């Protein structure tokens, strides 16, 4: 019996070693293949129109096209990973993804964990309410208001700071928060202006308040130790800005009012 158990342990150990070496050789194969054309892995959360969303089978949106333009300039192949918004920055930090691009606002807290490129878009947080809501301006929000947000977005962070933990209900997607607003589970939704417009256009009986909650800037995040990529992207962004490529992409998705 004891002998058998010893034998089993040896077998398991052998199997484990075999699997490890198996994995090792596989990843080095991959490395060899990608030497031809390096991949640029972009983490995003494709539930945020018009910046990133799924259109049919493909990813579309401003961030996706800007990232594609950057990858083209750098001679790299763009690979998109669709993950939860809250996992993007920690994934970039740990080197799982090369860049994070998901309408990410530059904040001081986030700067402690990752580096940000120059900004490529400005945005604001706005408040969506139902038609005829008692909430008329941002001043009507209080700690008794039920505020719906997308988890870990700046809308979540700012409203939690301003009105406290209990006032905020966090959903995985902006669209879920808007659905909760429609059925009266929350009183308002605080979210970025451009997705807000899309959500309001798609649902009857909603409106965006005239006063915005806060203004902010979007940028691409890169791991702290990857200054080379950061500088490369900044150079490309400057080029894309000056040759009008970024404006062209933005205008394609956001019609000027």
């Amino acid at each position: 019996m004891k002998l058998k158990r010893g034998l089993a342990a040896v077998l398991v150990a052998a199997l484990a070693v075999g699997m490890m070496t198996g994995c090792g050789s596989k990843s080095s194969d991959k490395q060899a293949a990608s030497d031809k054309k390096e991949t640029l892995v972009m983490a995003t959360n494709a539930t945020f129109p018009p910046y990133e969303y799924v259109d049919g089978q493909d990813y579309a949106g401003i961030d996706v096209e800007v990232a594609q333009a950057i990858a083209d300039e750098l001679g790299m192949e763009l690979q998109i990973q669709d993950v939860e918004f809250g996992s993007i920055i920690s994934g970039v930090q740990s080197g799982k993804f090369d860049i994070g691009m998901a309408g990410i606002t530059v904040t001081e807290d986030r700067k402690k964990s990752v580096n940000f490129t120059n900004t490529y878009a400005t945005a604001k947080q706005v408040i969506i309410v139902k038609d005829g809501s008692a909430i008329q301006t941002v001043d009507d929000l209080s700690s008794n208001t039920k505020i719906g947000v997308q988890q870990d977005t700046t809308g979540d962070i700012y409203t939690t700071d301003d009105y406290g933990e209990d006032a905020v209900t966090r959903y995985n997607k902006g669209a879920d928060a808007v659905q909760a607003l429609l059925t009266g589970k929350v009183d308002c939704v605080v979210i970025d202006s451009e997705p807000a417009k899309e959500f309001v256009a798609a649902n009857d009986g909603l409106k965006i308040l005239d006063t915005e909650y806060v203004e902010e800037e979007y940028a691409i995040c890169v791991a702290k130790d990857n200054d080379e990529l950061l500088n490369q992207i900044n150079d490309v962004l400057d080029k894309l800005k000056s040759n009008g490529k970024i404006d062209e992409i933005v205008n394609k998705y956001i019609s000027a009012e």
Partner: protein
Amino acid sequence: MSNGWNTFVTDFRFVFIQDDRWKSLFQGLGNTLVITFFAVMIGIVLGAIVATVRTTYDKNNGDMKKRNPVGFYILSIANVICKLYLTVIRGTPVVVQLMIAYFIIFATSNNSTAVAVFAFGINSGAYVAEIIRGGIMSIDEGQFEAGRSLGFNYGQTMIYIIIPQVFKVVLPTLCNEFIVLLKETSVAGYVGIMDLTKAGDIIRGRTFSAFLPLLGVAAIYLVMVVILTALVGCLERSLRKNER
């Protein structure tokens, strides 16, 4: 070594202590326990009713058809409803059921914890029903016959002879189901409820650190399951006193 320890302490302070983040973990743990407890209650009641209907039908449909046709039809309909319930609930994922309950069935309800209790309770009821039914079916037919020959009717045989034996048989499986349920409630975050997993997620999102929040949450779940298992172990041992 001490350097690594210092880093760990700094990280631990940052992740759990700073900004009172441990408070949201405890709040989340509270919500997880509340949802699990009441869902277990609903599951037991619902499961017992469904199991009763299903076994009564299976064991009596032959002679009841002749003796009591009206009762037989009522029982047949109840049996079909129970079968439908089992098929639908066991055939769809609990996350989908939870979202259907939250966004469709109780679209106008503001009490999301109650909606979650309802969804998880209904879900658990289906599994509990099959566990209890399996327990009843596992009791030897001779036990039924013995009861009937003592002059008990079907109901009395069940209550005095079968159920006490069933209880002992199903306890380990039932405990397993509740452990599964406790962990299944981790999807409550999908509908904006701050349960333990969601609290860990929020800390992960705020600190941009994955290691401690995830391992911390895992450790809390593990401790709860270990405690639950120990409690059921005690109960099982005391039930086994009549055995040799």
